[in-house]
């Protein structure tokens, strides 16, 4: 299994993402070429302008950014443990998860999850489980930053 998780400071830019994938692409490509992988699924989570304020759900201010607070190194450890649990449960060939810490502006990517699985069903189920558990077990908190 090819598992990689990383918490990086700031948004997950296309360049940052490409750099991570480049390190793993040869292994995933070889699993694809030999006919093992049937499904590649990739999710990008983007900060939305309409993100509701947890403090005031009725707030109509425009969101400027989210500040992600992580409890290090526990957040990284839990993220990695989660990746191994999910990859094992669904017999994935690969799972790559990236999460931001610090400020991520509206329109920027704060989370990326990519899985390679034998079939579509495992890929979709793994993604759903991973994100559900991420939102339960990984010590990361987001705090809205409102436009003035």
């Amino acid at each position: 299994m090819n598992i990689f998780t990383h918490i990086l400071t700031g948004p997950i830019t296309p360049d940052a993402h490409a750099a991570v994938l480049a390190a793993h692409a040869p292994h995933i490509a070889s699993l694809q070429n030999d006919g093992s992988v049937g499904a590649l699924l990739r999710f990008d989570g983007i900060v939305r302008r309409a993100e509701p304020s947890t403090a005031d759900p009725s707030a109509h201010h425009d969101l400027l950014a989210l500040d992600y607070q992580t409890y290090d190194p526990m957040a990284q450890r839990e993220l990695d443990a989660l990746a191994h649990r999910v990859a094992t449960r669904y017999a994935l060939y690969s799972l790559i998860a990236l999460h931001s810490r610090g400020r991520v502006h509206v329109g920027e990517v704060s989370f990326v999850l990519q899985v390679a699985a034998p079939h579509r069903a495992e890929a979709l189920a793994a993604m759903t489980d991973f994100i559900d558990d991420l939102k339960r077990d990984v010590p990361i908190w987001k705090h809205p930053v409102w436009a003035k």
Partner: protein
Amino acid sequence: MTIDVLIFGAASRAAGTDRVPVTVGDSPTTEHIAAALAEQHPALRFAVFAAHSPNSAPHAARLAVNHAFAPPGTIVHAHDEVALITLVSGG
């Protein structure tokens, strides 16, 4: 003994700090620390309450000791790092 507890997210904003001290007896369990947190830091009660309830919801606050979620009854030592893991919101 006095133990500093790290706090995050809404708990940290409510308390205006990122760590709070709690005074507990010797060899406290995580349940003792949670109870002391709620008693000694009323601003944190909203975040702590579920942590020492026997019917904790899956999303309830939990204590981590040395960067791992602590099973019930975990005994905390003087130099352990203790953190209150309130409802997380990553992703």
